[in-house]
């Protein structure tokens, strides 16, 4: 890979990491805000309504349930980001494609929701673990899903479907909805997900990306990507 391509790939990967962490921190702050407000409400109920303590007990219980639920959600989100960050520990590892897709969706769900897009999965039960570069596969899926999110109107669904095939795994991004007519909005994210970067990533993964009918994108990644030996 020449130096300019490598630089573009690095810029793309950094931009992608920034978007993922931005999504996480926004989500976490939301959960913390709910926890703080709910705890504050309990405190207020005690301070403002001392004489009606028995009548308020149901409200205390609801608030305590809400605190526990939000803590659980925040922990789950932190776990997703933790797993995401550790995907970059080694250039090659054995991992589940389904785990990668689940993490990606969890950390991009809010962004999709803001655009009125619903992200769904349709996982095949017999997809094996792969040995590949998880960070680059992550970045590739991010770029292709992001492009679809920008390309479809509010109310659309994006289904991420997987299936095994001989020595590879097939991942399909299937949009259900009306495509946007203007492509102006897509320019911002093109800075992160340039077409040549997408092409470069899929080449390093020794796979293929195909754009098929009805805007379906098919990604084929080999089950076993051996590290390239240094010359």
């Amino acid at each position, binding site marked *: 890979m020449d130096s300019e391509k490598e630089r573009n790939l690095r810029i793309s990967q950094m931009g992608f990491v920034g978007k993922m962490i931005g999504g996480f921190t*926004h989500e976490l*702050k*939301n959960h*913390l*805000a*709910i*926890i*703080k*407000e*709910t705890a*504050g*409400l309990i405190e*207020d*109920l005690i301070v*403002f*309504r001392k004489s009606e303590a028995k009548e308020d007990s149901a409200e205390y219980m609801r*608030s305590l349930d*809400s605190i526990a639920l*939000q803590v659980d959600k925040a922990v789950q989100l932190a776990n997703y980001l933790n797993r995401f960050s550790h995907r970059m520990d080694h250039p090659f590892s054995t991992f589940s494609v389904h785990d990668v897709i689940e993490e990606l969706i969890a950390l991009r769900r*809010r962004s999709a*929701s*803001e655009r*009125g897009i619903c992200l769904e999965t349709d996982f095949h039960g017999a997809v094996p673990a792969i040995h590949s570069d998880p960070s680059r596969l992550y970045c590739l899926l991010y770029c292709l899903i992001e492009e679809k999110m920008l390309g479809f109107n*509010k109310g659309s669904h994006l289904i991420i479907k997987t299936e095994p095939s001989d020595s590879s795994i097939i991942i399909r991004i299937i949009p259900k909805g009306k495509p946007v007519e203007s492509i102006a909005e897509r320019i911002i994210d093109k800075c992160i997900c340039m077409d040549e970067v997408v092409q470069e990533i899929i080449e390093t993964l020794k796979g293929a990306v195909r754009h098929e009918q009805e805007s379906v994108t098919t990604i084929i990644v080999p089950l076993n990507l051996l590290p390239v030996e240094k010359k």
Partner: protein
Amino acid sequence: MSWTKVLIVDDEVEFAAALSERLLLRDYDTKAVYNVDDAIAAIKQDPPEVLLLDLKMPGMSGIELYRTIKEFNPSIEVIFVTGQACQNGDETIPREAFACVMKPIDIDELTKQIDKAKQSIIKK
């Protein structure tokens, strides 16, 4: 100050409901709605004096909703409530907005801003 009419617009139901309850306990005439359509309907039916508006919501951003509301009711003072920085490259808070507070919020800071917004309306 008491009985300022406040409308909270935030898709985080638990957050908006808890905040609404806390403001009610402090004698603010508060109502919460959880989506853009309900917000527009509530404002048309019974306009608040102060609107607490989430910056990012499904379907329409808080800034888009702000512009829509200001078109048909410019007298409402809007305080943005956001989980991200009040100034950022993607969506900068409009200068005309009364204030911006960050989540998790400080209830005392928020009530101060609501009171200031009410004073601003009285002065107009």
